[in-house]
Structures are given as C-alpha cells and as structure tokens.
C-alpha cells in the first residue's frame, strides 16, 4: 500500500522490518547508513521513513535534518532503542517516536497513523 524506507544499521532488524511490513502489504526499501538513506530519499518519494538514531558515522538526527532539506514534507518515524532522544528537539521534527521493541505492534500502529495523515 505504501512505500516505506527503513533506515537501520542492524542488518537483522532491517530484515525483520522488511519482512513484517511487507506482510502488511507495504513496499519496503532499506538503507544501512544515514547517507544511503538520504540518497534514497532524494531519489524516491516515500510515504514514510522509519529511522534509527544511533548509527555509526552520521546519526539519525543529522540524517533527519538532511532528509527534511531534501523533501520538506517527508514523514519520519524515529525508531530508536534509546528513549533519551525523546527530549531532543530535533526529534520533534519527526512525526512519531517509537522505542524499539520486539513487539512491532506500536510501530505498525504509528506507521498506519502517519501514512493516514
């Protein structure tokens, strides 16, 4: 239904999300680094981007900034293992903030919401 980009440095997680979201019916692209993600965003219009924050090199927040520069209206869901960034104002630029969990329910819900908006 929607075109999703998942940006996470963990290969296994990329796999999981891709599998799960594809099962939901979405088309899923993945990127392993911030730059890769940014490039993909530049080239393609995504309905939503699921973005990890803690990545080697450029982190998610910086990527977020650059992505927004590329497409002003891009919808980003931050999906981080850390809850600390919730208070970081940069994360406010994201639509939603989800703390990573093995239960993907919250993520899927938030995704559905964001896509609907």
């Amino acid at each position, binding site marked *: 239904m929607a075109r999703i980009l998942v940006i996470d440095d*963990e290969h*296994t*997680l990329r*796999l*999981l*999300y891709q*599998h*799960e979201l594809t*099962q939901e019916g979405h088309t899923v692209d993945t990127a392993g680094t911030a730059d890769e993600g940014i490039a993909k965003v530049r080239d393609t219009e995504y309905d939503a981007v699921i973005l990890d924050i*803690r990545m080697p090199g450029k982190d998610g927040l910086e990527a977020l900034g650059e992505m927004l520069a590329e497409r002003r209206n891009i919808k980003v869901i931050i999906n981080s*293992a*850390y*809850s*600390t960034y919730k*208070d970081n104002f940069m994360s406010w630029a994201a639509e939603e903030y989800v703390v*990573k*969990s*093995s*239960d*993907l329910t919250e993520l899927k819900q938030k995704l559905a919401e964001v896509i609907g908006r």
Partner: protein
Amino acid sequence: MAIRILIADESPTVRVSLAELLRQEGYETVVASTEDEVFAAYAAQIPGILLVNLNMPGISPPDIGHLKKINPSAPILVLTSDTRFQTVVEAMRSGADDVLTHPSTPERLLAAVERAEQQVAKARQLDEDEAEIKRLTTLNQQIIDYSPVPIAVLDLKGVVSHINNAMLRLLDCPQKTCIGEHLISLLERSADEIDGEFRTHLSRVLEHRSPVHGSALHARLSGVDRYFDVDLIPLRETDDGAGVMVVLHDVSQWIIGHQFLRSVVRDSADAIVIADEQLVIRLWSVGAEKIFGYALKEIIGKPLTLLFPPGQTDTDPASLLAHLAESPSSEKKRTHRRRQDGALVDVELTQFALTDPQGHPVGICEVSRDITLDVAREREIEGIKDFYEHIVDTISDGIRVIQVKERRIVLANKAHLEWIGMSAGEVIGRHSQEVPWGLDEKNRGVQMEALVDRALATGLPERQVYASRPAKSDRVHWMDIVAYPMANALETIEHVVLVGRDITARVEMEANLAAERDRRDQVFTSAPIGILTTDTQGSIQFANPMIAQIFGVFSPDALIGENLFHLDQVKNMELTARFRQVLSHGTPLHQDQITCASPLGRDTIINIRAEPLFDQTRTITGLVAVIENVTEKISLQRRLSATTADLTMLAEIGELFQESRDPDLILQTILVGVTAGEGLGFNRAFWLAADSETHALRGKYAIGPSDAQEAWRIWSELKTTPHTLHDVLSGYRAAMARGEVRINEVARDLVISLEDAENIAARAAIERRAFLVTDGRHHPMVPRELADRLGTDSFAVVPLIFKDSVEGVIIADNAITGKKITDFDLRSLELFAHQATLAVERSRLYFELEHRLHEVQEAHSLLKENQEVMLKNARLAAMGQLAAQVAHEIRNPLVAIGGFARNVLRGLEEYDSKHEFVQIIVDETSRLEKILGDVLEFSRPKNGRMAAMDLVHLVRRTVGMMQGELSDHRIETRLELPSEEVRVRADADQIRQVLQNLIHNAVEAMSADDAGAGGGPQGTLTVTLQVAHGKAVVQIEDTGCGLDQETMRRMFEPFFTTKSHGTGLGLAICQQIVRDHGGEIAVANNPDRGAVFSVVLPCLQKEETDGTDSRY
C-alpha cells in the same frame, strides 16, 4: 876291607883246602863246622860271603833262607853234590846266590867267589849309593819338607807318595791321611771349590809325562780364596817309582790383589779407562759407563779418542804417550770428555802413562771424575759470592775491612770509596792510616785507629760518632762508625770490619725534635689549662703554671719531682687510687666537677682527665693529666640551669593559666612562681593591685614565710617531699582560705598612691619598669612606712601589665635569708613577670584555638561522611551507566529475536506443538525487554520536569489510580491527608511513579500468601501526609510481615531484591527520584507488624513559586 868268607862244611878237609885256596887269593876265611857255628858267626857278623855245603847237617834250604835273612848282603854260595835240578832250584829259592857242585874245580870255585865278591862289592857300593841317596834324599826331604812352597809328590796314578809340611798345612790334614790318597780327592776334601785348569793339566802330565808350568788352580780353602800357579814336574825314575812333583806357587795375594784392582777399576765410580799404546781401550770401569754411557762390551776395543772432545779426536798416540811419560806424575786437570750421546761433560782428568818395568810406555790410564755438580756448585758459590759482593757494594753504609796484622785495607765497598773519593786500586792494600775516613771540620783526616784498637782490645763491636766531610761535599756530616772484630775459625781476630753510617739526617732530626719539644713546653707552660706528666712511679716530671694555680702552689717547680700520689690535694680529692690505676693498667681517669682544695684557700672546681703515656712498644712510660678549672663555668651552668628550671616553671604556670579567667588565681600563681623558682627564689612576694578609682596601689596578698622559723619549716618540708607548683599553689590557696597566711596582713596594709612620683612602687607602675632597691631605709624613693612594713632593706619592684594596662606591682624580697638581690635577680624577676603575662595571654588564645579546632574537626568528619556517600553514589552512577550501555547494546538483538519469533508465532496454529515453544521465546524476550527498560530507567540522567504542585492532590490521585489493584488484593485503604495544599517542587510523573512503586510493594507484602478463596481483608494500607519543619512527609504503611535487618539495610541498593522476579531496581529508582527532588526515602519496621516507608520532600516556601504551576 877284605871280605871274610865263611866256609861251612862238614868235612874238615874240605874246610881246610877251601880255606887255603881262598887265602891264597887273598881272602880272609873263617871256618865253621857246625850249623851253630855258622849261626854264631852270623850273629857276630863275620862273613861277608858264605860258602856252605848242603850236606852239612842242620843246614837245609830253609836255613839258607834264614841266614839270608840275617845278613842279606852276604852272598851265599851253596856247595852240593846233589846235582839234581830240583835241588838247585830249591837252593836258589831259599836264597842262595849261587850253587856249586861239590867237588868243583878251584877255578870254578874261585870264579864263584869272585862273583860273590863282586856281588858284595856291588852290594856295598849299592849300600853306599843307597846311603848317599838316603843322605841326599834326607836332605832333599828336608828341603822339600821345610820348603814354604807346598809340594806333593804323586805317583803315576796321582796318588800322593810324599807331601811336605806346607802342603799339609795347606790341605789342613795330617800326613798319614794324605799319603796314599789321590791329590785331587785331597784337594776336594779340603777345599770348598776347586777351579782352574789344574785337573786337566794333572791328568795330562800323568799321561804324557810332559811338564806343565803355571797351571792355574783356584781353591777356596778354609773359606779363603787361594790362587796357585802350579808346576807339574814329572820325576825321573827312582827306586820308588816314577812320579810327578806338584809344586804350588801361592799367587793368591797377587791374584786377589789383581782381582781387587780389577774390581776397583771395573767397579770404580770414577771413570777409569785403560788403553794400550795404540790407544785402544782395554779396560773400562763401571764408573766410565756411568759417565760416558758406553757399556763395557761396546767400548772395549774402541779408540780412546772416541771420548776426547772435538778438537782432540785425532791425537797421535805415540806423541801423547811420550808427552805423558815425560811429564811429572799424574796431575789433575779440568777438561771435557764426550759422552756416547755426543754431549760434553766436565771432568777432572788424571792421565798417566802405564810403563813396563823397563820404563817403556805400554798404555794410558785415564781417571775421570764427573765434576758437573762440582762445577755447578762452584758456580753457585761464585754466584753467592757475587751476590754478597753486590750487597756490600749496594749498601749505603760505607764498609772498610782492615786486616789486623798490618792494618792494611783489604776491602772497601762502593759507598765508602765514594765517600773518600778514591778508587779501589788506590785504597786496597794501603795502610789504613794513610786512607782517612773523610775530613773533620778542621780539614784533618779522620782516623779510625783508636776505634780499631778499642775493638781489638774488647773483642766486641765498638761504636763512635765522628764528624766527617765526604769528598764531594762541603758540609760536615756525622758518621756513626762501628768496628766489628772478625774472628776466624781458630778464634783469632784477623780482620776488623768498619761500618760507617751517615747519621746527619738523624742528628738534624733530633735537633728539630728538641726544638719541637721546647716549643711544646712553651705551649704547655702558657696553656690556659693545667697539664702535668709523671713517670711510671708517679713522680711529677712536668707541670705548667696553671697546675700550680689550681693546686695552690707558688710555682710549678715546687711540684717537679714530687710524687703525685703523695700530694694532699690529690689525696683530698680521693683520686690517688685511680691515678695509680692509670699507671698500672692504663685505665683512663675521667672525673668532672670535683673540688680541688688549695692550700692558698681558693678552692676550684675542676674537670680532670688523666691518660697513660705509651712508648712505641705500647709500654706505659708515665701519665699525663689535664686539669681544667671550671669553677666559673660551673657557676654559670648552675645559673643557667636555674633559669631553665624557671622557664620550665613558667611553662607549668602557663598550663595552670589555661582555662582560668580567675584573676586571683593568676596572680597567686605568679606569686608562687616568684618565690618557688630555682633561680628566682625570693623569700617573699607581695602583690599590690592598681585601683583605677582610687589611683592607688593596694596590697592584696603576699606569699612567703613570716619569719625564719616558719621559713625553715616550710622549706624543709619542701625538701623532703617533692612538691609540684600545683601542689604549692593549692596548698597556698587552701591556707589562704583558712586565713593561715600571716604575711597577707602585711600586704593588706600596703597602700601607695600612684600619683606619688617619689614612690618607687608608683614609679614602677607608671613607667612600667622594674626597680631594685638595696638600701631601702635610706633610699630617697622609699617612704619610711614601706620600708618598715616590709622590714627589709633590699627588695625588687616589678609592674605586671595585662593587655597593655598595668594591673599592679609585685614587690619581692629576701627578708628571711637576707641574700643579696643582684641585678641579675632583678632582670630575672622582670623577665618572669613579663613571661607570666604572656603566659596568661597565650593560654587564653590557646583555649580559643582549641575550640575552633574542634569545630573544624567536626566539619571535616561531616565532610568525609558526605564524601563517602558521594563516592558511593558515583560508583552506583558508574555502574548504572555501564548497565545502560549494556542494555542498549542488548536491545537491538532482542528486537530482532522477539520480532522474528512473533512473526513465526503468527504463522503457527495453536495446536501446533511448536506454538508453545515459540510462545516461550516471545514471552522471554518480552521479559528481557522489560528488564532493559527498568535498567535504562534507573540510569536515565535526571531530566524530570519539575514544577510547583500540590502533593496532597497527587497522593490522592495516585491512591485512586491504584484502587483497582488494592481491591483485587482485598487491601483496606486508609488515607490521612491534610485539608490544605502542600506545595512542593516536583516532577509529578516521577513522584507518582515512586508512590505507585511503594504502594505496590506494600500490597505484595500483605498478599504474601494469597491462597486464593475469598475471605477477610489481607491487610491495611495506610497513607498519610504530614508537614513538619518545612518538609512534607508521605508515609505508606502496610500490615505485612515486615522486613528483616538485612533487607532494611540493603533494599534501596540497585539490583537487590527479595522477590524471585523483577530487576530489583524499583526501590533504587524511587530513591534516586526522591533524592533528585532534594528529599529522602526512609524505611522502618512498624512495631505492630509491617513496614512503613517515608518519603520526605522539601516544601516550597510560600514565596517560592516559579510561575510554573503543574497541571496537578
């Protein structure tokens, strides 16, 4: 002589006719008619011939034989008419010499008689010959018998027929035994051995009858070797038969001598070589073998020149022999000989020619002695001689040896020759007097004669010192010359050895030493300390003026020669024994501060040190004593120690002042110090206080005995029992309280106006300085009453200044003892007063300081406590950070695991066996995520959103939120909250979290054994909120089982849990939150069972709102 013929016939006619016939022929005749007459005639020895007729009765052939026997030399002519051959034979057999038939012709008869006559004559001749032979034989016999040469005569068989005495002696056997024995067997019997060619020769001679001369016979007879040259001479035929004469020439001596010589030669250790005239070696001794190496067999027959050293090997024999024959008999010379191995050996050679009796040289004899060792020894001796000569020449002392007889110089060594500036040639052999030993100061020769004479006279070395100028110097030196008389083996003195040593240096050194000694004596004499020395008996050898002063004698000379042990001064000091010890055992004497009583009256206090004096052999030769007059020093020392004691006392006083603010106590202490001090021991002290209102000095109190009696009592008491300052002070105060201090009255009476400039006490106070009054009764500044009151002429006045104002004045005197108060005492008193005031100040400050210090210490320990807490917290924080880090790392993998598990689960039917397993995976990962969440929560840096809010409202709301859980567990709830707001500054979420956590714990505690089935309530939860001291306290009480000590202690520690589930972080997080809010959580056990948790939070003061009102 005519032969008488006996005619024997029966018939007388025959007789007559025969007789007539014969007479005519010239024969004498005798007739016999009967046999008796015949026998008688024979008995008378008448007939020379017998003519006998057989028909004669009584004459038968046997009678003929008989008659023949009687006279064998008388031929018997038998007449018989019986011509029968038988008869003739018989007659002949019986002894008849001739048989005639009867009658026979006169011619026949006469012929027979003639024949008989011839026979007789022959017989007579034979007899004569025999007698001659016998005579000769006897002579020869004797010759042989007495010959010293052993002779034996043997027959052809070798049997001894004759043996002479010499031979008998030789064989040592009697004649009887020898005769008839074979010579060889005789020899064998007598001799141990028989050797030689003798046997062979003997048998040859016996066989061939040819003489042998010089047969060698060697026999050992009677243990002695005998050598004989034997002549074996066959003898011509004699009546005894042919034989051999054996003559033994005893050549034993010659042989033995020869053998001896041979062995001497052969076995000689000396090398004896005998060569013939061709210089061919014939004889070679063992010694020669040893020295030259050639064995006998090798060298015999070789030329002698083989042994000659190179250069002489082609010596001509003849010329050598000739040379030797001419030269005088054997001279020994040293030369070389060549050994078999080619090496040359040193030999002492005796070489001489061997000559025959005519004097012709027949050979050479060389006797060589190996003198290698000798040569070596000689060289050694030469070496030693050289060595000694070298020593003599190297010695720096001059040596001259004089031969006694003519006083000639036989030896002068290099040193001596240099000294006298002559060469050996000029000196040796000259008369000693002609060669003086240098020149004396007047340039005369220095003669040794007198010294030598002395030495000869005494026979002992004599010594003398001379002034002598050596040849090469202008300076006169001192020579120490010793003359040694030298005796030879016969104990006569043949030489005198003079050894001269230059002792100038020593002499100069001694002079220097003497000068040194004088200098030293000067030093000693002028030294400021006393020095004396004695010999081993204690007799004083040296004393300097200081000693004289100390001992109280006019001059040190008075002491010289006196015995130290007998001096009164020494005896009085009881040092005699110890001085003796110094000399006998070397024990040093060390005595300090001993009083030496001087007869002049001025006793001195001295330090005395005495040490033994040693010579180079460490024998004690005396003692040296050093005496220091320390009288003044001692008194100064005493003064000093007194002052020190006073300072100590000052310190004590300072201690006493520490806490006291009581001025009386202070002053009394000062007064005690003034009178109790060691140096500052005034008899009495008075205190006059300055009264600012009346402007006067008023006596307050005094200390000290009021009279001598009291003084004596007090002071003896003080002496026997040691009193500290404290004891004295307390005693004094006690006495004061009892009113027993009489002298106080005196003090009380003293009043001096401060405006009275003429009064010394006033002046002291105003001018702030001390005064000493020595003649109080006449002193212009001392009013009469004061002097009277004090009752003393001499006193000291000292002001006491506290904090820059004069408190008063101390008057101190020595009224009881009358001891003079010196300036020194005054200064001491001033100093003391000053020190006392300082002590008071100091003690006050000290007290303050102590107090402050105490405060600081408390603060410090508080700080330390906090520090510990902070450290603990930091540790926990670090741990928390680590946990957070780990948690984050774990989170991602967990998401993957859990996520995929869920995915799989979704694909499984509930009835699938795997469903359960995968469900477990999902559940466990959830659990892990929860734990992670807690950990992260705990370590989350504080970022609470603080705002002012009403705590009451929050508590109420929270309890309300938990109502569900509470009802589920059938817990009763009691709420005691104040009616007004309680405003605090907090993060509502966090506080709520804390309260929730605590309530949850309480519920758990109360539902510990929720066995299920409904029934009564399980417990009661009480929540209260109180405000006190600006703090809000929320208490959550339960009625559970309560907590044990361990749990209470550790429950707030992270990861501590008593539950089987959970992270154990709950309470830790709560505590963190509350602390972050500036509050504290506490826990206590309720006495009625259960626990109570108290959350304390600081209240917001009414003024302190920040405008951020919380929603709550």
